[in-house]
């Protein structure tokens, strides 16, 4: 999962990992990487989710690639497996013409703005990801979101999550 | 006048490790006087002797820790302040004194000095300034005056010296004093006051080093250097600290006094204030 600092990429990784480990009784390892800028640089969350113990924590060829910024696409799109699935922020990521992978474009930022807070765009993306893949169960994701978001924003985040699922089901592209 | 009597007891015996004497210091060294004043101040302090701790570093001054009969730690070069920091934080009831020289405290250890003064940690710093590295053979350090001769400034010291009271005050020390080893009563009282002050209490003790510094700088012997202290000493508690740098040139003054004695919240007070609110909010 890649984007730029402030988009909540790492938080999204933590929520999904937490869901897998604490609520789906699976294994998950999250590693993080950033550009040298403290704000606004690129950021990447690599998440391995497995039913078995994870001995090698590095993601070389992901099954799922989520990008919330063009820079994230540019840097990491070549790593996605040929049969892998991509989720892109619709307004911010524009793949090259050669891009042929199975891809969903999710207008997460627009949806988040409509909900009143841009910062929940990452939760919209999680909603879509959970709908389109089986990395974690819906229930686990919902619980992990509630543990992770600031008090008083639970309802907003739950709505963002639901909206993401809706957009994915609606075949947003 | 009474006839001199020789006894096998020293007035400081209760606080000195007699079996460790004779000490390693040269004849005429000022460390004995400084040690005596420290011991005398401890004897009259409100803190029980078992709660006094001395921490020293490396150099002639570092050996003080081995002669005082209290809990005493002789640590590494320049690091008695951070060692004392850990000890004081864990055992705030202890009266922790750092006994250190100019090479140790402010040359190699200068960074610890300024930051601990800034933090205003409740330590007593007894700083014996004899203007050179005595133990290693009389090299120059951060308090050696400009143009002074040492074994590594054969053409005179090219560098400027720290004015320690100014530095300590600028870093925020709430108590700053300077006396020479001749001023035994004032020095003892300044140390007593340092024990009382809650915060970083700094006492500079100007001391003769006849072998390392004196004889290379036109002081024939310890008495000669002490004579310079006596003749040059100017007591001025309200001195402008920018003007109290020491040249050790005959005719130039050595300004002494209790220069700073102000209230400033110690590290401990500041910490408790902020943590209290947090602890109140705990489940």
């Amino acid at each position, binding site marked *: 999962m890649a984007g730029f600092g402030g988009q909540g990429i790492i938080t999204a990784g933590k929520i999904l990992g937490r869901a897998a*480990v*604490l609520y789906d009784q699976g294994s998950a390892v999250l590693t993080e990487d950033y550009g040298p800028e403290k704000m606004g640089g690129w950021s990447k969350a690599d998440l391995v989710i497995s039913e078995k113990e994870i001995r*090698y924590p590095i993601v070389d060829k992901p099954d799922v690639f989520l990008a919330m910024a063009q820079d994230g696409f540019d840097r990491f799109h070549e790593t996605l497996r040929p049969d892998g699935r991509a989720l892109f922020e619709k307004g911010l990521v524009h793949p090259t013409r050669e891009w042929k992978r199975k891809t969903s474009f999710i207008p997460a930022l627009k949806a988040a703005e409509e909900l009143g807070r841009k910062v929940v765009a990452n939760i919209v993306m999680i909603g879509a990801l959970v709908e389109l893949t089986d990395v974690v169960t819906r229930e686990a994701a919902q619980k992990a979101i509630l543990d992770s978001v600031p008090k008083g924003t639970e309802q907003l985040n739950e709505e963002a999550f639901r909206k993401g699922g809706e957009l994915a089901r609606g075949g947003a592209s | 006048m009474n006839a001199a009597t020789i006894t096998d007891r020293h007035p400081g015996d209760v606080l000195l490790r007699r079996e460790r004497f004779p000490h390693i210091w040269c004849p005429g060294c000022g460390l004995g006087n400084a040690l005596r004043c420290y011991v005398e101040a401890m004897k009259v302090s409100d803190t029980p002797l078992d709660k006094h701790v001395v921490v020293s570093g490396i150099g002639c001054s570092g050996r003080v820790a081995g002669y005082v009969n209290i809990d005493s*730690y002789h640590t*590494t070069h320049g690091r008695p302040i*951070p060692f004392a920091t850990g*000890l004081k934080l864990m055992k705030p009831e202890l009266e922790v004194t750092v006994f250190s020289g100019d090479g140790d405290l402010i040359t190699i250890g200068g960074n610890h000095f300024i*930051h601990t003064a800034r933090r205003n940690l409740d330590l007593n710093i007894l700083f014996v300034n004899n203007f050179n590295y005595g133990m290693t053979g009389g090299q120059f350090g951060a308090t050696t005056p400009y143009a002074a001769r040492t074994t590594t400034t054969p053409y005179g010291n090219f560098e400027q010296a720290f004015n320690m009271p100014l530095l300590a005050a600028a870093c925020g020390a709430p108590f700053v004093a300077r006396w020479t080893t001749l001023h035994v009563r004032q020095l003892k009282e300044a140390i007593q006051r340092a024990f009382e002050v809650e915060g970083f209490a700094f006492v500079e003790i100007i001391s003769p080093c006849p072998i390392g510094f004196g004889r290379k700088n036109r002081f024939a012997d310890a008495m000669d250097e002490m004579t310079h202290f006596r003749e040059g000493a100017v007591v001025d508690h309200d001195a402008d600290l920018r003007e109290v740098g020491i040249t050790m040139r005959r005719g130039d003054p050595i300004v002494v006094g209790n220069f700073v004695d102000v209230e400033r919240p110690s590290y401990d007070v500041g910490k408790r204030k902020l943590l209290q609110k947090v602890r109140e909010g705990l489940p």
Partner: protein
Amino acid sequence: MLDSRPVLTGEHFVKGDVAVMEGAIAAGCRFYAGYPITPSSEIAERASQRLPLVGGEYIQMEDEIGSLAAVIGASCGGAKAMTATSGPGLSLMMEHIGLASMLETPCVIVDVQRGGPSTGLPTLTSQGDMMQARWGSHGDYEIVAYAPSTVQEMFDFAIKAFNAAETYRIPVLVMADQIIAQMTTKLVIPPEEEIETVYRPIPDVPAEEYLPFDSSYLVPPMALAGTGYRLHMTGLTHSDAGYPETNVPGQEALVPRLVRKIRENEEKIVEVEERLVDDAEVGLVIYGSTAGPGWEAVQAARKEGIKAGMLRLVTPWPFPRTPVRRLSEQVDAILVAEVNMGQMVHPVTEQAECPVHHLGLPGGRIFHPNEILRGLRKVVT
């Protein structure tokens, strides 16, 4: 978020840096002095948040030299005390690893290894400090080091490290690395009553009879500051009474005991993990974050018919001489894989009765299992 329980029993999804600090607190650590450095700063952050809540002290010092000095001072006051750092900071701590050894003050140092030399790779992994951990301070002394391979072991080994430090009155290092320290994964913290902790021996004789470095003990009892013993401790070579004894008899009485504390307890301290070694023909020796890829490689090698076995150095120091020798007597060759240009391969070679090969990386990343597999293939042909 704010929790004043010292042991946060339960399941967590946290970074290795957090796990190691929670392990330390669970072991009784109540003092942390440190200086921020990537990639260990999250340990300091956790310490600053948690220690004040559990009755401990956190202080951020002006450098790593002062940090370890403060830790030793706190330990002399009776605290279980620690610091954490990374390569450049570990270099600055060498002076006080010596002082802690000489004063026999228990303390724990967590080193999150990053690529070096010098400033090197601040955010990327390495195992390049292994020799410095053992030999970095001047003079003769012995330390204990643990090398965690998982986030869970960051927690578990912090406890082991404190227990070893307190048992033998020595500095103990936790040799982590950036990957383990900064990965986020599952941590299970057991109930408080299941965590075994050790506190240093303290004297039970009156002050007049107490010798702070009593050589009739291998590990003498340690009087704490302010408890009426009026002890003296010095970094100089010293007598049983603690006073400077800077001569040959003094040195010959003191230093061998400092070393024997560990050498005579080596069997008790040393820990290894052995997997599939019973019938192995080629041995893979690894530690720390190389364990995961190493184990994958061994399993893959087995599928190809290569009888590989793995020996993991849980305690790189003291070096597990006996297990390595035993392995070397059984296998035809040993491969040491490590993220440095050749460090732990040296003690392995010193002990081994068979040829020893090295597979190294200069730092920045961990091995891919396939790289180690290729190494194993090469060794057997």
